[in-house]
């Protein structure tokens, strides 16, 4: 081997190097459109649905349009430039905005208006396409170096289009039918879910921050508290909910004041306690680490310039720790959204109710009605708090 071969080959004309990521993503999307079932049709909510390919669902003009748009994304990415990336972003947004119309067309073709129970389900191909389009958005955001704020704007406007379609023309869709059958319940469950999560997270922010501050003051506390919190995490969430039932029921029965305050073995109280218990570890850990990890040189400089201990804490340590603390809030909240779903098992309400009822009735559309909003809620909170952390990081430190 000559010495020249051993050297890494320089990328000539880096601008022309195709974006392999987007190209392979669009190939996968094509495969999903052509190879997987786009939608499914069922005669009613219990029977097994049958899959329908894209060709049958939206006809060859629809498949052709979809394929062309997907090829356009790949083609634009084959010769990347800032303009082409923007164009690709436009195409991706266009596909996302057109997708509900695809469902409408499919509903028109496949659902017999004579059968009121018949419904249209979303198939694997559709989900895969949706997921990969999200990946395309992420990749484009990274390549265009957009701030996190932009995807939030883009996705919420696409969400608006979807919502409009859903509420006006998509009545054939199983999810919509399921929603219409219990819209009040759904809204109430969603509100309960959000309320439970916000209360639990607020409590754990306050308690967690206090605990982290105490740990910084009393070193001994630190070890035992972390050991306890770590131990709490090894108990399965399911079990913690269950374990709280009996003691709380006993308390409610024997301490009347608590019962009047709404404490009972089943419902919100055990859910809230368990949620806070689980939320404390990520909250305390991130707060503690965030406060501890501020560079000692920066802190020494603060003292050397004549800052008092309190000034040093409020003006230097805390602002520098805030982004990492917020990261803790983000992890905690996302985790709490998932755990609250489990809490439905002990009667805490929330969107988990639909999941477990649906599983019990083998009604998958109902499961979807519970799971999908939970997923969306988690993603929205994740993106929102991520964007907030970015804003709070002046000058983009770290």
């Amino acid at each position, binding site marked *: 081997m000559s010495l020249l071969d*051993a050297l890494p080959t320089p990328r000539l004309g880096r601008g022309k190097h195709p*974006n392999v*990521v987007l190209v392979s993503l669009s190939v996968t999307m094509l495969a999903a459109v052509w190879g997987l079932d786009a939608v499914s049709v069922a005669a009613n909510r219990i029977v097994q649905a049958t899959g329908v390919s894209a060709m049958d669902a939206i006809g060859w003009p629809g498949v052709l349009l979809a394929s062309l748009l997907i090829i356009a994304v790949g083609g634009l990415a084959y010769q990347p430039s800032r303009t082409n990336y923007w164009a690709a972003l436009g195409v991706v947004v266009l596909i996302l905005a057109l997708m509900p119309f695809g469902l409408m067309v499919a509903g028109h073709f496949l659902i017999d208006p004579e059968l009121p129970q018949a419904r249209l389900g979303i198939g694997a191909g559709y989900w895969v396409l949706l997921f990969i389009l999200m990946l395309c958005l992420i990749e484009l955001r*990274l390549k265009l170096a957009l701030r996190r704020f932009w995807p939030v704007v883009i996705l919420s406007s696409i969400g608006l289009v979807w919502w409009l379609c859903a509420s006006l023309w998509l009545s054939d869709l199983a999810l919509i039918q399921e929603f219409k059958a219990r819209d009040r319940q759904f809204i109430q469950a969603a509100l309960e879910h959000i309320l439970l999560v916000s209360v639990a997270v607020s409590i754990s922010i306050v308690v967690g921050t206090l605990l982290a501050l105490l740990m910084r003051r009393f070193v001994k506390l630190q070890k035992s508290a972390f050991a306890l919190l770590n131990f709490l995490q090894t108990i399965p969430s399911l079990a913690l909910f269950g*374990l709280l039932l009996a003691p709380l029921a006993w308390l409610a029965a024997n301490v009347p004041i608590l019962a009047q305050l709404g404490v009972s073995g089943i419902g919100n109280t055990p859910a809230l306690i368990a949620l806070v218990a689980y939320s404390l570890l990520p909250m305390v850990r991130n707060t503690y680490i965030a406060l501890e990890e501020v560079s000692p040189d920066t802190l020494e400089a603060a003292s050397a310039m004549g800052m008092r201990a309190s000034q040093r804490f409020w003006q230097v340590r805390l602002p520098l720790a805030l982004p990492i603390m917020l990261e803790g809030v983000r992890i905690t909240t996302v985790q709490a*959204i998932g755990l609250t779903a489990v809490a439905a098992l002990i009667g805490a309400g929330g969107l988990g109710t639909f*999941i477990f009822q649906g599983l019990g009735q083998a009604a998958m559309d109902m499961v979807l009605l519970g799971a999908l909003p939970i997923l969306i809620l*988690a993603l929205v909170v994740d993106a929102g708090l991520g964007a907030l952390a970015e804003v709070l990081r002046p000058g983009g430190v770290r």
Partner: protein
Amino acid sequence: MKPNVKQPARLSAQSPSNRLWGQPLLWGLLLAICVLGIPYAEGLFRWFEPNARQVIYQRAHFYDLLGRHLLVVGVAAIVTISLGVGAGIAVTRKKGQDFLPLVSQLASLGQTFPPVAVLALAVPVLGFGTLPIIMALMLYGLLPIVRNTLTGLQDVDADMKTAAHAMGMTPLQTLYQVELPLAAPVILAGIRTSVTINIATAALGATVGASNLGDPIIAGIINGNMAYVIQGALLIALLALTIDSLFDALQSKIRLHLSSSPGDLARHSTR
């Protein structure tokens, strides 16, 4: 000058290898005792539920449930480890580096998906039973492994890689003899987090008909039988502690190896 803080004599505490494996052995033993002993501890559990008809979970043997629990977690772990470490390695190579940003974003997105929601979404596709929970565990456990593999490999000193390159090591040799050994402690820490989380999360599988240690818990919640819940929770916690301390011992061993034999590294990179 900064104060010269004395290092606690930590090394001496872990030098004998039997000490290293003592903790996992202890927890494992306790787990075994509980698995086999709970059916005979009716008196103890009667104390929690004086009025219940039954206080010992009877629908399956505990060792059966433990076995299935381990199977689910094990299969998920094997898949996530090969996928996660594989992806981490692939995107840190020259050919795969284009995928690096997307993969690291995707991995963090994976943990945003609540396991219950994933479980629920997997059921329509995969049916009731063990498959959906394995799927959910895979998605949920992927992040720590991918993240730590990436950090571990990226933190390997660039000079060391250049040196390996300059000595005439092929990229594959560099990976196996330099990068992976140096990144091993970090990668192992990721696997540890992933597996420990999944042991607890696997209990959720009981809600979609996968029979494992979550079963007694669900049954207990539904029937209002605290004793069942305690039995399930106790076994899962002990299992988690056993596996966690096993990883702890493994990590100490690796750390000991890395810190006690700096000559090894030199040998690796000049071979």
